[in-house]
């Protein structure tokens, strides 16, 4: 007996477009095969991600609300975990923090149950960001420390760059400017290792803000100029 294996070419094409970040082409391709996309959680997640990456957050959220129950019914836990994290991101960016928190918590629980360390790291970091926005600084610091440990376990330098930047914001908001700057320096270190100009620019911008709050206008200006020159190297992307 030989397995009948359908859908590979669509999946391969979709993966290639996703890797290249060709979100418009990916959208066009998947929309031509909607029935297949709806029945394949990996493709459904790719379509939802394309909405988010293109800035169509409400559409992305509505898409995941429709496709998550399908992944649940099919018992595809890896796809379900990723989808929950992405709908959480959509709600977070739309400012729906209660909904985002619930989704990240659910993703975190599934990630822990399934030993999905990357999802645990991402969901924990996202919960830290929500805690910080809600001025629960110390709670945020604890969550970011946990996320850093998870990213270390993965050796994920890009995740570490993002997380150190986020923890720096928490320290900055708590008024601990020296420690905030230390963490932005670490974020820059990892952003360079990850060769990620966006994260490097974010960290420089963070340091500019810290310099400004310290009353060090000259440093703030120099750091902001560094941030601007890094941002200038980026293509026009909605992220």
């Amino acid at each position, binding site marked *: 007996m030989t397995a009948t294996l359908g859908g590979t070419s669509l999946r391969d094409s979709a993966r290639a477009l996703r890797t290249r970040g060709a979100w418009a082409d990916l959208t066009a391709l998947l929309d031509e095969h909607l029935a297949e996309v709806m029945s394949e959680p990996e493709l459904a997640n790719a379509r939802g991600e394309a909405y988010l990456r293109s800035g169509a957050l409400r559409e992305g959220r509505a898409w995941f609300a429709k496709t998550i129950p399908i992944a649940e019914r099919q018992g595809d836990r890896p796809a379900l975990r990723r989808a929950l994290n992405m709908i959480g991101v959509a709600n977070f960016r739309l400012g729906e923090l209660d909904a985002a928190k619930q989704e990240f918590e659910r993703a*975190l629980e599934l990630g822990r149950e399934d030993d999905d360390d990357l999802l645990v790291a991402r969901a924990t970091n996202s919960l830290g960001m929500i805690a910080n926005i809600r001025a629960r600084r110390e709670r945020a610091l604890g969550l970011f420390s*946990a996320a850093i440990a998870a990213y*270390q376990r993965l050796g994920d330098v890009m995740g570490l760059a993002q997380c150190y930047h986020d923890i720096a914001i928490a320290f900055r908001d708590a008024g601990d400017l020296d420690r905030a700057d230390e963490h932005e320096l670490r974020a820059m270190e990892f952003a360079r290792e990850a060769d990620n100009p966006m994260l490097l620019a974010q960290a420089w911008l963070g340091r500019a803000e810290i310099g400004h709050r310290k009353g060090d206008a000259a440093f703030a200006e120099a750091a902001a100029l560094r941030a601007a020159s890094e941002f200038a190297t980026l293509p026009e992307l909605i992220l």
Partner: protein
Amino acid sequence: MPSLVVLKLSDSFSAAWVELAEEYGLTLEIVVSPPEFDRHADAIGIVAAGGEEGQLEATLRQICPIKMDVAAIGALANHRLAIAVVRAGASEFFALTDDYALLRSWVHDRADRLRMRAQREVFADGERAKYNFDGILGESPALLAAVDAATRVVPHRDVTVLVTGETGSGKELVARALHYSGPRREAPFVDVNCAAIPDRLLETELFGRESGADADASFEVGLFEHANGGTLFLDEVGHLPLRLQVRLLRALEEKRIRRVGGMRSIPVDVRVVAATNVDLLAAVQRGEFREDLYYRLNVVAVDLPPLRARRGDVAILTRHFLARFASDYGMPVPALTPKVQRQLADRDWPGNVRELRNTMERAILLGPEIFDARNVEPTRRLTLENGAIPFPARLDTVVYATALAMLALCGDNKSHTARRLGISRTRLQRVLDGGQDDEVFVGASLHQSS
């Protein structure tokens, strides 16, 4: 490259293995007998028995336990068979062709994990290159003695270390070097600033939580567990409240923790490195720090000297930081005039190596190509004349001087200072930054009008 190892008990689904291996960048290895199946952990296993399901359970019992995750494959969805093979050691059972999408997702997930493991090894090597004892620069005898003491502890994975020294003297650098040079380097290095988190939360952060009203999830893993296999760096350990000192001592002695609100005792394999910038022994004598915990932490003591006690190292460190930042920021390395070098060596550097580093970074970012003495001047020097709080004086001057005096009393620890002044850390920072302290002025005007 990770492998997909398939033990074929029948010829079914052969095309699927080729497709899955190609799809997820795995090397395909087909074997036909259980002894050949025994592979290292860098592989995903499949035992395929389409049409020969009767052999699955016995075969799995023969090969398990095994380091890699193994999926059992049959042709029919049979829940009794699924239960039997999972009990025999398989991670999952898939009935092809119906479950092909689920199998693909499972292989995808496992392949990702194998790649992450490889990534972790690369990361640990990178961190080791950044944080090692050769990177702790200086030639002063006091520094060399401290580094020597720390180096001796490296291979002893369970020995606790107490690192002492002023703020900015490099305590965290020593802790990281200990971690990344030693046998725990592939596990996390988790640092916690005991002064930055309030007592109530610190307990949950360190030990985790089972349930509660303040919950973000049904249970929460604490930093002890997150550091499992690695190092937990407890900075400013002198700020640990007595109640938590008891819990920490128990965790160190029993190598087990209990989450807050939990009944279960959880084993943890962690090296604890503690650090402090205050005299912990004096805290023991004042009854603020448990003596038994002090000796439990202080198995090996590493005492880092302040930079002013090793002025000869200033030139070495200056050259190092200038070269590093010039390289990082794509700038030329500025030349140091003899006058600037003298100025640098003569400064007291109250913020120690960190202050020197920040000064050099600032000089690279802001300075002209020729290094100018103006760039090494601190942006602000916090001093009190004769240590006295001025009176009579403007209210903002008195507030500022009081904050400075308390900061000095608390060994430059801002969290501790804020607590002792009875204000928030944010407000303390605002006062120290020279900003208007609105709360004081609002309070004063209300008082006058009443």
